[in-house]
């Protein structure tokens, strides 16, 4: 008989760094487009899994010695392969016992209708602007659950000011995946107070000044994630040559919205992305690295 203990033991065996089980009631009040009960109406709980991204991958980016391994191994591989294989194995365990297992990997390239943000990790994202509900009472597809909220419901961590999840063991160096299920599992309490103490280190570290009081401006982030800043080691004099706004851009002073960000994307082409659709991170995830250093110094990890 499947139970929470077996789920957790298997998850760790299959490669998760942390696992938690949250009561589906923890999503009460969320938008239907973010509600896991719109995916599995009789869901009882959600199982959350964290995957460790090796710390050394951040180090080589911040020391400007290597960038591609982070994107290829730490982002693309974990989201596209590892988490999917992992979820299929975990889901089979649950379905073997006659319960539903709705796998939720990171839907990196889609945004629900009405969400105008982007995912800086990808060449671009697609907002499902034409989606329509298939029946009265249903939300427009795709329903994409809020991973940060789900992680908090599962007791795994809570998002910091940068909008990235911070977990006690891993800090912000992690990726997530979930399973929505009707299996009656013993749930963990939701995560308590966030580890983020609003120190501002993440905002100060961002070369594009993308983190403000209202969180991260994802379009601004996307421009500097892919290297529009002067500390980019691949920066050349040819970049935006002749553009009167060049200095403003590389200093991180220009503000980009969706249109202006997309307009400059093709000019920010320092490392390969076409073969995978994943943008190499040239800011070195400075926000997360600064956050990690701060939390380490505080001794809370």
């Amino acid at each position, binding site marked *: 008989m499947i139970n929470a203990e077996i789920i957790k033991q298997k998850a760790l065996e299959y490669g998760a760094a942390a696992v938690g089980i949250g009561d589906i009631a923890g999503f009460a009040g969320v938008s239907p487009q973010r509600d896991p009960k719109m995916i599995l109406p009789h869901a009882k709980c959600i199982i959350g899994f964290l995957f460790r991204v090796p710390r050394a991958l951040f180090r*080589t980016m911040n020391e400007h010695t290597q960038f591609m391994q982070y994107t290829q191994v730490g982002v693309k591989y*974990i989201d596209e392969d590892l988490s999917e294989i992992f979820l299929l194995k975990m889901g089979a365990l649950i379905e073997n016992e006659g319960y539903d297992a709705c796998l939720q990997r990171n839907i990196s390239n889609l945004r629900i209708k009405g969400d105008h943000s982007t995912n800086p990790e990808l060449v671009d994202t697609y907002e499902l602007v034409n989606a329509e509900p298939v029946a009265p009472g249903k939300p427009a597809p795709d329903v994409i659950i809020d991973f940060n909220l789900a992680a908090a419901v599962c007791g795994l961590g809570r998002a910091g000011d940068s909008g990235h999840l911070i977990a006690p063991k891993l800090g912000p160096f992690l990726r997530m995946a979930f399973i929505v299920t009707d299996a009656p599992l013993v749930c963990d309490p939701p995560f308590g107070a966030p580890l983020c103490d609003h120190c501002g280190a993440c905002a100060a570290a961002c070369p594009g000044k993308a983190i403000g009081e209202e969180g991260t401006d994802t379009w601004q982030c996307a421009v500097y994630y892919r290297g529009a800043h002067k500390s980019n080691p691949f920066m050349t004099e040819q970049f935006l040559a002749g553009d009167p706004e060049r200095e403003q851009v590389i200093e991180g002073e220009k503000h980009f919205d969706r249109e202006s960000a997309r307009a400059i994307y093709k000019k920010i082409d320092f490392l390969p992305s076409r073969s995978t659709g994943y943008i190499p991170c040239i800011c070195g995830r400075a926000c997360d690295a600064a956050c990690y250093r701060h939390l380490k110094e505080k001794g809370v990890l």
Partner: protein
Amino acid sequence: MKALKEKLIAELKKCGTDLVRCGRAEDMRDGGVKKLFPEARTVICVLFRQLRGTRRGIEEGSVYYQYTTSVETVEEVMLPGALLRGCWVLEEAGFEALPQRRYQLVMQEKEGTNFEVAYDEIYRGLESETVLDFEKCAVDCGAGEIGLSGSLLTDDFGPSQRWGFIITDAELPPDEVVTPHLCDRCGECIKACPGHALSAEGKRNDWQCAAYYKGANRSKNPFMPPNAFEDDPERLKIISGEADLSPEKAKEILELIRFYPPVKHAMVASMCGRACDTACYVHLEEKGVLKRKFRTPFRKRPVWELPIEE
């Protein structure tokens, strides 16, 4: 540290890894190791075999797709998974661990190419992106020796493996560096190349290799139409593998070889099937020097060849 190494190897084997070898970081001839990780103490070489059966289709001239997709799956799926698992074991033990998979779309050199990937997808001259010499590091980890063609040869699989590394500050017991003993410089690799891309000394002309890896030799490419390169005055030389290609000419030819779809991740479908390595494997198998034995030899009949039509 012996226990940690054993645990690490056990976890890597669970991920399908065939061989694990450890070298001392200070013994690495590639300065990139210390550039990436100045405090590194050990470089762990994680090797996956390339199944002999993946070469069978090209050997028989019957199926080409399986060879390159198997390479792609090992490089893009199996290896990163094992490397991450190894890193997690080391991080759990309190050490830093940096995974290194082969990533061929970035080169520090301003010229040149990597024959396994589309030449026009490569970003060149990127000195800030450290790229390790995988062959050299594998040798320094004790994984094997370098053969005449430049391929890594191991006692277990000859020239048939793919590999990556974990660089760590954990001081794991090192393995012995192998004294070269497999390659007898027989020259079979040189003879087998359908594009004569290897010199008598085994130096590879990367552009020549890229063109013939992708299938410029008609006698080894069953997908080439009769009118291929018909406007080229050197057509016969090209399709018989006798042309001496400059980088520009090789690019021109690579653009025209569109007889078979590419594999994912910018990988080029191999038409030669790495004939150099296959010939090497056949030779080593015949000599009986490989540890892994099969019930029947790989080469079961004479090598096939299509006629070259003028």
